[in-house]
């Protein structure tokens, strides 16, 4: 299994919080290498979230985690690491996925997010319709689901080197 999970005792799933150096409480922190199983992380996140949060919140967190990580792995530079974190920040829960990608892809992601933040429900319908009519290129259904289905606010943070991109999905606890 090509992943490293950081928890209190480096076991999966974690049993207690991790105190992050960035001042928030990291619940799960995973460094990911290309080619590993997103399916495994989904089981891991859902089981953990169900142990801490109500069922629907756990489902939302697992859904957003799965979709953002799939996107990150699909569009990453193979030589760079992907990281995943679930964290508490004040009254919010955050899913934070970082990868490295080519500038053109990052530009596209920014454009997609602008469109998504205007009307998530309409973009969700548009994406499914696009799949049905098979028009257009590869869609953004995963990102839209993290926003519309998981009901999370999506934010993009760019690193200084022009290739690092962090997607933060957050919602109130």
């Amino acid at each position: 299994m090509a992943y490293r999970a950081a928890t209190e005792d480096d076991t999966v799933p974690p049993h207690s919080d991790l105190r992050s150096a960035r001042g928030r409480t990291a619940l799960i922190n995973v460094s990911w290498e290309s080619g590993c199983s997103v399916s495994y992380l989904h089981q891991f996140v859902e089981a953990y979230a169900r142990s801490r949060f109500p069922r629907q919140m756990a489902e939302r967190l697992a859904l957003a985690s799965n979709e953002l990580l799939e996107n990150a792995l699909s569009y990453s530079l193979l030589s760079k690491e992907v990281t995943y974190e679930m964290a508490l920040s004040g009254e919010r829960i955050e899913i934070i996925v970082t990868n490295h990608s080519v500038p053109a892809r990052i530009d596209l992601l920014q454009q997609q997010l602008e469109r998504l933040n205007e009307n998530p429900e309409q973009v969700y319908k548009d994406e499914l319709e696009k799949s049905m009519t098979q028009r257009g290129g590869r869609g953004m259904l995963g990102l839209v689901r993290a926003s519309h289905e998981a009901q999370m606010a999506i934010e993009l943070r760019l690193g200084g080197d022009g290739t690092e991109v962090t997607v933060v999905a957050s919602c109130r606890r």
Partner: protein
Amino acid sequence: MSAFSQLPLPALDSIDVKILDPDRISLSGTIAVANPRETLGDFFEAVHSAVVIEKRERISVDVTQLTFVNSSAIRLFVDWASWIHGLPTDQRYQVVFRTDRRVTWQRTSFAVLETLSKNAFITEAQ
């Protein structure tokens, strides 16, 4: 022998597929693999072919216990609706999805899928 009895069940560890009777299929578990098309997509296509061969007007698919599907799997449902629309009008059939409105992905996805499918999909939410 009915075409349904010969359906190849998908070899995917995270889901359990049952053919309960010729008109009723149940899917349970989760679909989070990167490319479910290779397994589940082939199964859906086989079901579609069996429905057409047997000239059925309706089939029921119970997804109430399918607690999560990724976006690649959502696209498989979209494909299924497209196959139905690709049939001559007199061969088209309906898929009745039994869903659980408490499950996040089912509540949001099937509301849109039903609309987009233009009567090919019907949702019965419990």
